[in-house]
């Protein structure tokens, strides 16, 4: 094995060099009064080097453990505990990265009758409905797209490089699929959803797209729910609280 030019990583070669020099010195001056001392010092050096290597390798391993914990904590902080989808924080992190490639579409889906399910069937049934919606969305989006649980009954989807027709098609499929989910019971309840759609073709702040898709969803809800509304300039993004009553 060739010694590393700096010698930092060539501990094997360094050690044999020390051994060779000590052997040579002891052979050359076998009766020297300091020969025993030299051998002792060489032994101390070997022990110290072994200990040094051990401490650094233990330290590296413990550091890996910290890195792993950090990664896990980050993943936990960015995912929705119930559905396993990304949460708002996780979505925004991904959105900032993926929203760089234009055009992209945002779809904001809101369940119209989750409150009713919770009241009539209980919270457990409501939770199950949310889980069913999450797995439906997950199975229907493309692998490049991302879906997040945006709120209790809201899901945000980022569809990459989607034109207006494709985006609308995705929204239709999602609306249909969610509408097929039935909450079982004596009087089964079919889920219903509203979807706001926004197509972004120009570079803009992520928050603008979010407020626009939100405005489109709000229009869909205002029109009675169970429908898809594509964002139009005439919708005011800062509607919330003003017109809901």
């Amino acid at each position: 094995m060739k010694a590393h030019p700096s010698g930092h990583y060539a501990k094997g070669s360094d050690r044999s060099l020390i051994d060779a020099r000590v052997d040579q010195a002891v052979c050359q001056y076998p009766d020297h009064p300091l020969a025993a001392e030299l051998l002792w010092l060489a032994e101390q050096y070997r022990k110290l080097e072994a200990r040094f290597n051990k401490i650094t390798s233990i330290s590296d391993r413990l550091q890996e453990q910290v890195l792993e914990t950090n990664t896990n904590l980050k993943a936990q902080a960015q995912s929705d505990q119930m559905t396993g989808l990304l949460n708002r924080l996780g979505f925004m992190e991904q959105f900032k990265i993926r929203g760089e490639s234009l055009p992209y579409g945002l779809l904001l889906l809101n369940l119209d009758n989750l409150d009713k399910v919770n009241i009539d069937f209980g919270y457990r049934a409501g939770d199950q409905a949310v889980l069913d919606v999450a797995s439906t969305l997950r199975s229907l989006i493309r692998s490049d797209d991302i879906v997040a649980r945006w709120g209790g009954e809201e899901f945000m989807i980022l569809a990459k490089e989607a034109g207006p027709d494709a985006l609308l098609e995705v929204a239709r499929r999602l609306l249909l699929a969610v509408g097929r989910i039935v909450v079982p019971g004596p009087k089964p309840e079919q889920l219903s959803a509203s979807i706001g759609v926004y197509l972004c073709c120009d570079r803009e702040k992520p928050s603008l797209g979010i407020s626009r898709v939100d405005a489109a969803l709000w229009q869909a809800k205002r029109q009675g729910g169970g429908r898809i509304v594509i964002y139009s300039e005439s919708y005011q993004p800062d509607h919330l609280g003003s017109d809901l009553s």
Partner: protein
Amino acid sequence: MQLIERAATASTPFIRMDPSNGWIELRGESYPANSYEFYGPVLDWMKEYIESGNPVSVFFAIAYANTSSVKVIFDMLDLLEEAFNRGQNVHVAWSYDFRNTRLAEVIAEFQDEVSFQFTVHNVPGS
């Protein structure tokens, strides 16, 4: 000799050293800003206790240690190894959470360095 007990902090472990039975305990995480300053009195206590020749038991439940703390743990093990080689009764136990596989490897590295009894215990949540 005095009983020493220090409460754990965010970066230092709980420490208890009891001269009545030679029981030394370190629990928690160890990354003090200055390990040598923090552990200096602990090592001094150990040295003094070991001189008594009485049996000594050290219980570690350290889940994380920074580099200088790792060095200090080796210094402790060296002191214990010397005592053991002089015929003193020495026992070290280390408890860890079995889900922490890296820590298991680290403990095995410490174990390799000594010839006295060094037992490892799987305690979930430790």
